[in-house]
């Protein structure tokens, strides 16, 4: 029994790693195409039909590029920083159920690595560690602009983790569990949480943009300084690992939002599974859509939004939820 469990877990981990590393690469293709169509361009067109092999060409470029470690950097920290970003994104995925359980060759498969009963807390905590990647990369780079960017990204992440944690507290109070499977099952009987917790849904969605460092909260890279922020000194596959981490995080957050607020995969039918993937795709698309539609906000506007608007709303939402639950 234990051996079978071990083999099953290892296979699941390898499948998730392979699928989402590839998806992270293909995600860049989608991003360039979506942005291009929204800006009335064609995007990548030359490599393969409709530029679909562009992802492969990019991968070859990243893998074969010279790996430069500049002279004055703190070597070991500089080298480990991209690994932290990529690794924590995938470690967080251990508690996400990607599909309902299904039967394959008479063997029941649960597409979740480990259904720990504190799923959400674990996912948010480990995604929080992911911010050490940009921070260490920036601090070890011996580059003033990298350091500035690292400080800025740390401030953004820490602030928005407060909003994420508080906004998700009200749904947790309703469900009474921290496991994502329990969230899914609760919504089968009681309707989607987006209808009973619309405010929490909006707050969590907004905070997700900050957690993944996407436009309009894209302060991790200094676009206005025309350099790539904490990643300025990186090249080749080390830079690629930062990229994989960012896109994997976007995909995992896109799985978590529908699981918590939009009914997840429902009762586990095939239709429910496809609906779940469709919801996930919509939230991934929203990351690209927003990037095409809105410019970045200023750092002070970002902090104002977090501490003076979103956080009070989240606290009020929790109090109202608590009062309603006591009355009911």
């Amino acid at each position, binding site marked *: 029994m234990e051996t079978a469990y071990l083999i099953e877990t290892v296979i699941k981990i390898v499948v998730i790693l392979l699928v989402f590393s590839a998806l992270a690469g293909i995600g860049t293709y989608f991003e360039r195409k979506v942005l291009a169509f929204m800006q009335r361009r064609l995007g990548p067109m030359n490599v393969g039909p409709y530029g679909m092999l562009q992802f492969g060409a990019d991968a070859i470029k990243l893998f074969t590029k010279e790996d430069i470690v500049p002279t004055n950097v*703190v070597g070991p*920290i500089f080298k*480990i920083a991209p690994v932290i970003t990529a690794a924590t994104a995938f470690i967080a995925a251990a508690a996400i159920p990607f599909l309902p359980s299904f039967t394959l060759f008479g063997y029941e498969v649960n597409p979740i690595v480990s259904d720990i009963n504190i799923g959400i807390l674990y996912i948010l905590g480990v995604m929080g560690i992911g*911010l050490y990647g940009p*921070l260490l990369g920036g*601090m070890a780079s011996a580059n003033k602009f990298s350091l500035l960017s690292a*400080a800025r990204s740390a401030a953004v992440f*820490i602030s928005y983790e407060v909003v994420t944690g508080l906004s998700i507290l009200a749904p947790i109070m309703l469900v009474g569990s921290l496991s994502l499977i329990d969230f899914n099952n609760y919504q089968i009987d009681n309707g989607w949480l987006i209808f009973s917790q619309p405010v929490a849904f909006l707050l969590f969605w907004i905070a997700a943009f900050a957690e993944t460092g996407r436009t309009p909260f894209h302060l991790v890279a200094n676009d206005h300084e025309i350099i790539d922020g904490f990643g300025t000194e990186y090249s080749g596959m080390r830079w690629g690992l930062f990229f994989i981490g960012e896109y994997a995080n976007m995909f995992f957050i896109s799985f978590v939002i529908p699981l918590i607020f939009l009914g997840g995969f429902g009762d586990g039918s095939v239709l429910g599974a496809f609906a779940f993937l469709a919801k996930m795709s919509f939230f991934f698309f929203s990351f690209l859509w927003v990037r095409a539609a809105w410019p970045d906000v200023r750092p002070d506007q970002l902090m104002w939004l977090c501490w003076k608007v979103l956080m009070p709303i989240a606290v009020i939402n929790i109090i109202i939820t608590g009062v309603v639950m006591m009355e009911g």
Partner: protein
Amino acid sequence: MFEAIAFYLFAFLTIVMFYITVTTSQALYALTALAAGMIFISAFFFILGADFLGAVQIVVYSGAVMALYAFGMMFFDTTRDLKEKQGNKYVVVGLSTIAAVLVVLIFMAPIISENITALYPIGDGGNTQEIGMVLFTKYLVPFEVAAVMLLVAMISGIVLAGKKMDESLTLQSEEEINEKASK
């Protein structure tokens, strides 16, 4: 068997990380090793079945060490080695002795611990619920006192830091900033 492997792996990693924290003269190494050590400690909670405390350990310490990074950024050039002052030798010897005694005590603990039973063993409700029950019944007063202390710290922090909060350098023009600086 897996528990034993995991325990020895994470015990080794934790000790190595804290050893680096203490011995290195490079601020960035020390901070990073501290953060890593704190996160590896959470593994022990997971091994013991205290999932909730393990996740809280990750959340709390990854944030807390982040604040240390901010200080490191402000006070040091973190890419250079620091010259440490060698302090009083007697203090070093005394602390080492105490540490050695502590290690012996820790290794003796398994002999004594046979007689120890958990006050609130985890029931069927899952340990998040159990922690909540104990925290809000038996340990309510310490819990609330800690909350009040944190509130005091937060308010004093805002009062200390918030003297010029209504001024925004970003919104001011170049002349206004220069005028302020020349005063």
